[in-house]
């Protein structure tokens, strides 16, 4: 009897929401299955971690206060007085790092599997925008606990923003909400972190996901070539339930890693920021900014007639712009892909990031 009622309610909702069309779509949706399929999961893992960030972020919002007098104390309150506050906060901090790591892995897998090629150029572009937004989340969120490390890392970061030619000083002023990092900066970053960036990200993310749905998952050229020679179709597995089961497994493994990190290596609170104290030695940004940070340290203060830091920032900008246009310079006029060039560029970029991040951490 109860089962019949549940079924009737379910059918009522399906009818009103027009879920039949959705069910049809899902029933026919399939995912290619080959040696490189495992890399397909990283997009979903990034999305999953973003979902965790939204959930834990909303929970933190219940107790956090974005003013210099209270920010640090409110985080301390969450860590010490609120039940499981330590867990929510640690999860939020660790998942942020894991999300950015997953995003980079996702991007590099797209590069090495050449999934950016036509007709998926827009998917690539929206993805790059999402990566930038993720870094923005990381940068703005880092300041919110208002401790010594985050205060000075923000100072250093906004100093570098000031080195952008022409708009630099105005950009730095906009970011800081003034000439120096202050309570105004905290308010502003809080607004970016919980309203502006989530709003923009939602829109770009929906576009990115819609494009992925429209064009389906890309099959790497090598795999296509292989199966074409064998005269076979690339085997596919149904999205429901097979791919979902596998995706769920990837998410659960991510959860396990996240749980271990959050519980065994809880995120430290540090000391409350004192704007009038001198910067402690060895200030450095979070790991995902270490490579450009260390590179800037290596550039001499004057190169020819240009200030070293300005040159560095301009080069990073050019590099980012070039990387964003990857689908365009990677394809030849006849539609084929310069796979070796792209793979080489990818290896170069990945190595640069890995080596310079390591150097930035240990020097």
């Amino acid at each position, binding site marked *: 009897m109860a089962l019949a009622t549940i079924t009737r309610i379910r059918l009522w909702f399906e009818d009103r929401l027009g879920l039949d069309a959705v069910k049809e779509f899902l029933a026919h949706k399939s995912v290619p299955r080959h040696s490189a399929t495992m890399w397909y999961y990283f997009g979903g893992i990034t999305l999953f971690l973003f979902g965790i960030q939204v959930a834990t972020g909303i929970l933190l919002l219940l107790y956090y206060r974005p003013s210099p007098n209270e920010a640090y104390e409110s985080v301390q309150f969450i860590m010490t007085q609120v*039940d499981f*506050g330590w867990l929510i906060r640690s999860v939020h901090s660790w998942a942020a790092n894991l999300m950015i790591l997953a995003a980079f892995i996702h991007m590099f897998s797209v590069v090495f599997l050449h999934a950016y090629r036509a007709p998926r150029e827009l998917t690539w572009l929206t993805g790059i925008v999402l990566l930038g937004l993720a870094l923005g989340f990381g940068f703005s969120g880092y300041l919110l606990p208002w401790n010594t490390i985050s205060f000075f890392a923000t100072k250093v970061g906004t100093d570098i923003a000031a080195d952008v030619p022409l708009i630099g000083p105005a950009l730095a002023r906009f970011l800081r909400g003034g000439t120096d990092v202050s309570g105004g900066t905290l308010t502003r970053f809080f607004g970016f972190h919980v309203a502006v960036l989530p709003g923009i990200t939602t829109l770009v993310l929906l576009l990115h996901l819609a494009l992925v749905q429209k064009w389906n998952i890309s099959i790497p050229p090598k795999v296509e070539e292989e199966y074409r020679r064998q005269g076979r179709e690339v085997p596919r597995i149904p999205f429901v339930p097979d791919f979902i089961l596998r995706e769920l497994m990837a998410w*659960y493994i991510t959860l396990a890693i996240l749980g271990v990190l959050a519980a065994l290596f809880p995120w430290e609170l540090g000391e409350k920021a004192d704007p009038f104290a001198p910067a402690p030695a060895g200030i450095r940004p979070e790991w995902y900014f270490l490579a450009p940070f260390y590179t800037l340290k290596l550039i001499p203060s004057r190169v020819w007639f240009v200030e070293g830091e300005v040159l560095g920032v301009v080069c990073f900008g050019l590099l980012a712009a070039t990387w964003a246009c990857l689908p365009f310079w990677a394809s030849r006029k006849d539609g084929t892909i310069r796979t070796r060039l792209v793979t080489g560029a990818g290896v170069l970029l990945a190595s640069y990031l890995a080596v310079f991040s390591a150097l930035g951490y240990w020097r």
Partner: protein
Amino acid sequence: MDSSRRGIVYWLLGGGLISSLASFLYPVFRYMRPPEVAEAAVSEAEVGTVNEFPVNSGKIVRFGNKPVLLIRLGEQDWRAFSGTCTHLDCTVQYQPERQRIWCACHNGVYDLNGRVISGPPPRPLEPFEVHLRDGEVIVTRRA
């Protein structure tokens, strides 16, 4: 695969999903319940009942992470100052027989307004406000 084995798999899967979800949701629900103390003691601290402080006595109480010297001069006359001497950070004390605040480390003396009377302290003691609420003594920061 026979159906009994399939049954086990789905029990495992279902049980795992439910128990893991429970282990995620339990902390979340506990988290959302407000703790005993509603907010960090940045601006206010309850330090005891009125009866715990005899007239013409002083006691060091805790305000957040720092000591505060709470002095009851009369039935209704309460004073509170930072309990940390401004010279070299020793904890000050109230001397009832001399009605003054004294630091034992280097003989610094403050009056009952926190101002330095003699000795090495370079600055006065930061004053706090004292309020009474239902027989409880509340110390708050000066606005």
